[in-house]
């Protein structure tokens, strides 16, 4: 059984929470005691439906009171084919950072469009974020089809509009499904009200969409998280580098180069849970042993000598500002790329991205909460990376305010 991580973007008004609620409800993933609580709550919020499915995902008191999603909520369900992790992200512009967060790990984006309204600023914003974050597959779910009499023309028009709009975004794959979350049309079961639609229902799509190939990145990358040194009598000289394979495949005997030290060695042994492996693949948590006793610590990157990453102290990146406090010129920051950390400063704000038009606008030197900007960073130590388009694991970083410890920005390189 495989795992699929997806995020949903859209407003309560677009029926996003209702759609998720419907997926969970119709796939029998909600327990009766929770339904009972929801029925009680639905009555108290005055929503005119037996169960307000949106209440399932709004976990915080403030969200229930205001009827909006503030923070990312994670929901889980599984079918016989797959386990699903849903990051339910808020749609309002003031929560762009939360959307960035929920989308960062996703294999798939579900962007909801209200059939009555067609493509809105919000649709554009969500699509642009999906593009920046390199989501492998975007599904545009045209919801509330019941309110446009399930008309094929409406669906076709929105599909055509979206394809035209999304052209410059270079999204990897785009699919379209017409649905009515409230009534359940095309969510779990195919709808008999839209016989003109030959595609799968949403759940069938989620179960069958190809994800393995999207995860295949060729260049082998490994970062040391923790050095294991038992220092016991039996394991006196044991020195293992624990970490996960970020991408590609590592083999015993590979000639490797270590960054930032730029020393070279050879993989002597790969261990996983006490068992020696000939090779290790993406995502596997392993321990690497090298032939030479060289200086390697947490955050060191290990790569094969013939597939080197870029290694620089100057980085061009697109960042999303996530802190309530705006960027201060000269602000001391820490750049964290998985387990690697170094001091950094933003040298130049090259441009700001118009989040609705996907155009670069001149920067006024200010970066506020939710702004997406192209910047040039300077770091204290050399950073080894690949462009984010090529590798989502080594092309991503966060910026941490050294003073407040907050995560102030998330960035993608290149």
């Amino acid at each position, binding site marked *: 059984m*495989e795992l699929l991580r997806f995020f949903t973007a859209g407003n309560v008004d677009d029926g996003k929470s209702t759609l998720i609620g419907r997926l969970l409800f119709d796939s029998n993933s909600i327990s009766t005691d929770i339904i009972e609580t929801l029925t009680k709550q639905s009555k108290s919020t005055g929503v005119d439906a037996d169960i307000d499915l949106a209440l399932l995902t709004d976990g915080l008191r403030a969200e229930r009171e205001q009827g909006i999603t503030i923070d990312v909520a994670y929901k889980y369900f599984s079918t016989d084919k797959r386990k699903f992790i849903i990051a339910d992200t808020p749609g309002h512009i003031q929560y762009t*950072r939360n959307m960035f967060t929920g989308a960062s790990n996703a294999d798939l984006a579900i962007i909801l469009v209200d059939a009555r309204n067609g493509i809105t600023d919000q649709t554009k914003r969500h699509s642009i974020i999906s593009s920046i974050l390199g989501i492998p597959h975007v599904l545009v779910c045209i919801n509330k089809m019941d309110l446009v009499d399930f008309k094929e023309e409406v669906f076709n028009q929105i599909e055509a509009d979206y394809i035209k709009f999304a052209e410059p975004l270079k999204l990897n794959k785009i699919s379209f499904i017409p649905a009515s979350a409230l009534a359940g049309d095309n969510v779990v079961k195919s709808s008999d009200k839209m016989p003109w639609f030959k595609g799968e229902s949403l759940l069938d799509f989620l179960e069958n969409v190809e*994800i393995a190939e999207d995860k295949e990145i060729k260049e082998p990358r490994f970062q040391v*998280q*923790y050095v294991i040194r038992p220092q016991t009598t039996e394991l006196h000289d044991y020195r293992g580098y624990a970490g*996960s394979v970020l991408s590609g495949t590592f083999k015993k005997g590979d000639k490797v180069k270590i960054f930032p030290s730029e020393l070279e060695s050879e993989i002597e042994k790969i261990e996983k849970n*006490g068992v020696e492996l000939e090779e290790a693949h993406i995502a596997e948590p392993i321990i690497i042993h090298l032939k030479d006793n060289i200086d390697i610590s947490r955050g060191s990157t290990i790569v094969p000598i013939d597939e080197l990453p870029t290694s620089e102290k100057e980085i061009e990146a697109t960042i999303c500002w996530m802190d309530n406090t705006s960027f201060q010129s000269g602000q001391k920051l820490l750049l964290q790329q998985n387990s690697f950390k170094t001091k950094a400063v933003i040298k130049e704000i090259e441009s700001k991205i118009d989040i609705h038009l996907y155009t670069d606008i001149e920067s006024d030197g200010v970066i506020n909460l939710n702004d997406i900007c192209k910047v040039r960073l300077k770091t204290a130590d050399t950073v080894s990376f690949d462009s984010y388009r090529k590798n989502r694991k080594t092309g991503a970083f966060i910026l*941490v305010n050294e003073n407040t*410890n907050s995560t102030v920005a998330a960035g993608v390189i290149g």
Partner: protein
Amino acid sequence: MKKLDYLDELEAEAIYIMREVAGQFDKPALLFSGGKDSICLVHLALKAFRPGKFPFPLVHVDTGHNSPEVIEYRDNLAEKLGEKLIVRKVEDTIKARNLQDGKGKFPSRNGLQTYTLLDVIEEFEFDACIGGARRDEEKARAKERIFSVRDEFGQWDPKKQRPELWSIYNGKVDKGENVRVFPISNWTELDVWNYIKRENIELPSIYFTHERECVLTDAGQLMANNEFLTLDETDVLVTRKVRYRTVGDMTCTAAVESEAYTVDEIIAELKSSKISERGATRMDDRVSEAAMEDRKKGGYF
């Protein structure tokens, strides 16, 4: 290339998170309750750190209302692994701080254990506490980060959570603050059981069905009859075949009727069960809609 099985992927994520804790913090701890979730954490720690020692002790906040089977399991496990176990008792906190013990028929120490937890964090200056909470348990938990920063009072502020992206975890805190870390955030109850089955993990016996004398509560739940309850003549005592879905205080954790003698049978039961884990067993979450959110804001796990 073949994609990892979902259990492998969940396991890999949890091990990655544990190694991040080891790499980022000076004094981490693993909060061990003796329940299936924290037992899985110990199993994952073995995979993350062997042949080395754990880079953290196991810490148990003992409410004094635990099942003897669980305490026995805990002690055996720590001894078998040769890892350090720190136990702090809520009983002692009550005495030292002159606190009011839980009252009533089912006296809960759920609120009181927060004091003991915060005390033990202060005593050992723990800067990170790994716990077995899962997001599917409860809707406030569904909103909590994997690295959840707490202030000096252990409080969770849902509005000030740090954004958490990709697999980059920011565990930077000031002295006195700590981070609660939840490596199995993305696991469901069923995932945990499927993992226990696959890895052949040994569990305390109370997870499997056995005959037990229980009190039938007004809400229709079955509470094991034990020395901590104050019963009167109106209480109905029944002997039933029960098991526990979750390990907690014997005063506020209900048993469920079950015919499941094995892990396979438990999985089959769960698949057909229509009641959530906490709904079936916890009396403390039913108090109000935001009970868990409020307890977390107060420093609870």
